[in-house]
């Protein structure tokens, strides 16, 4: 349970490795939460006038996760991304028109200047984008939507896309993943279970095939995060 504070011992995680299809690791669960939060932030930004309170709460959650990940040492090069991660805040109040303007431009924007009126600020691209958007995933055309209403309608489809992409990343050495995990006071045992029984079967599939998938060249959580950046890049291209 998230909030019960039971500590998962390393031994538990090893068992989790063996029976991987059934017990997701803490690191994975945390990653899923991060992914879900980022998707929610994206949705916030797609709205014409985002709910500021909600956006701030989600962004704070993302920040917490990232801070913990950096403490655990799984998020290297945290600092620059942290700054970028803060940028969503100023995107919280950007208008849909500014979103559209940003869509066509290059993804690399510096920290945006802020005018007094935040509603007109920030023509910057969404924060996670760290590289140029020259290389486009062919799926990206699915993300180019004309208006927020359509966005909401195809959200489920988009989410499946995200998770399919995430499914493809798989560290060659699963032990490396677990070795980074701190014995923390979070217990996320049922978190992912609850999520998986919900509406995202592709995430389930992804995790079940986790051990079976061929390893990519880089095999740490860091590569996972690079993949995540790429995925969010795709999202950002709207």
């Amino acid at each position: 349970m998230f909030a019960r504070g039971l500590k998962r011992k390393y031994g538990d995680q090893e068992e989790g490795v063996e029976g991987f299809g059934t017990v997701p690791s803490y690191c994975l669960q945390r990653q899923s939460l991060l992914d879900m939060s980022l998707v929610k932030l994206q949705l916030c930004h797609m709205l014409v006038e985002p709910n500021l309170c909600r956006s701030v709460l989600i962004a704070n959650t993302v920040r917490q996760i990232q801070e913990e990940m950096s403490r655990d040492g799984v998020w290297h090069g945290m600092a620059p991304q942290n700054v970028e991660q803060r940028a969503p805040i100023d995107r919280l109040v950007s208008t849909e028109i500014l979103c559209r303007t940003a869509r066509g431009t290059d993804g690399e924007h510096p920290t945006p200047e802020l005018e007094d009126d935040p509603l007109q600020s920030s023509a910057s691209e969404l924060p996670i984008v760290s590289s140029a958007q020259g290389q486009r995933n062919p799926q990206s055309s699915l993300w180019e939507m004309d208006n927020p209403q359509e966005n909401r309608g195809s959200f489920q489809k988009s989410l499946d896309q995200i998770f399919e992409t995430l499914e493809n990343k798989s560290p060659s050495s699963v032990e490396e993943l677990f070795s980074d995990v701190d014995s923390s006071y979070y217990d996320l045992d049922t978190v992912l279970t609850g999520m998986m029984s919900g509406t995202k079967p592709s995430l389930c599939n992804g995790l079940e095939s986790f051990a079976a998938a061929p390893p990519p060249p880089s095999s740490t959580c860091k590569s996972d995060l690079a993949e995540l950046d790429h995925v969010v890049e795709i999202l950002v291209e709207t």
Partner: protein
Amino acid sequence: MAGAGGGGCPAGGNDFQWCFSQVKGAVDEDVAEGEVLSLVPSKYNGDQMTGWYGHRITVYHVSLQNKGRAHSRGEYNVYSTFQSHEPEFDYLKSLEIEEKINKIRWLPQQNAAHFLLSTNDKTIKLWKISERDKRAEGYNLKDEDGRLRDPFRITALRVPILKPMDLMVEASPRRIFANAHTYHINSISVNSDHETYLSADDLRINLWHLEITNRSFNIVDIKPANMEELTEVITAAEFHPHQCNVFVYSSSKGTIRLCDMRSSALCDRHAKFFEEPEDPSSRSFFSEIISSISDVKFSHSGRYMMTRDYLSVKVWDLNMEGRPVETHQVHEYLRSKLCSLYENDCIFDKFECCWNGSDSAIMTGSYNNFFRMFDRNTRRDVTLEASRENSKPRASLKPRKVCTGGKRKKDEISVDSLDFNKKILHTAWHPMESIIAVAATNNLYIFQDKIN
């Protein structure tokens, strides 16, 4: 209980036998997303109650004939219904401003008319609701149908006389307070001086005079210079019921600040800061979200205030900032489901809470059309349900129970069977009598106490 004055309200929500009185609203109407019937009683005499649904305000009024009769309470009937706000378009930002109403507050009644403030995301309006039961007839210059008479035809002079007519209740906008908020307004609160009121959005609080629409004073501003540093927003604000210089505002981080307007024009420095230390054993990634305060209400006495966060209701003594004096769990069984509730956005639902007239009991809503009452004296609590099935006249409400694990007893409902689309965000308690109103989806339920 009819006609009971201030001291006549018996202590406790649990000594009562709550029974169904009325339900208002459509039976099978599909509810559009985001439109919830909410209600606000007039805290001054409880005879008016407003429900609003999207942009449409309906005022319910207790019929005067029934009031005062022993063993019988008046029924609330529709008094007036009107559309408060129109959708607007902000040309500067190319945004449509929704006409959906966020809050309504009644003003104290000073004459025969009733006044209320209603607000959408950006604009506050003052409405006057008045009765007209007489009509003037016999004008000199106008015909009966209103057309001007030809002056040359007028040969005699008469005094117009008032003739009775069918009662007509009209609502007319008297003031429009606009263009003072950049962010979405979440609260309005009328001051005890009955002349000023505050309006709060996510980052700022403004002070208005009810008579002046073209000027407002900013009294709280928490917008950071760099919006990237924004981590906390204002979630609710309220004036103290007796001290016209004191108000509080709550934040998304679970803190409450009490400010004194005498200390400075801009109350960025609080006079008191209320925050409960976090329990490290229950810390999770969702701790901050569930600590975000969705409602803050002063007690009628002015000595306490109550805050509602996602899982609990806390009562604070204004003289003690370190921790609340009472914490009541509303639906602790949801704590293990926080991830799912985060996923389906229910974790962001903003529940309100209310005091009874004597401050001895508090009430708040939950999911599955359940609402909870806590007796502060006996420390007992009860879960009740507002549903059409339980809505036979004078039928008593049976306490409900949620089964949290293990074997489910008969009549219990398991956590996984709860309907999270049926949420009771708004409840109200008559300030003097044992009448409560509960807004469930698009119906308004009124319950009365049977014993008295």
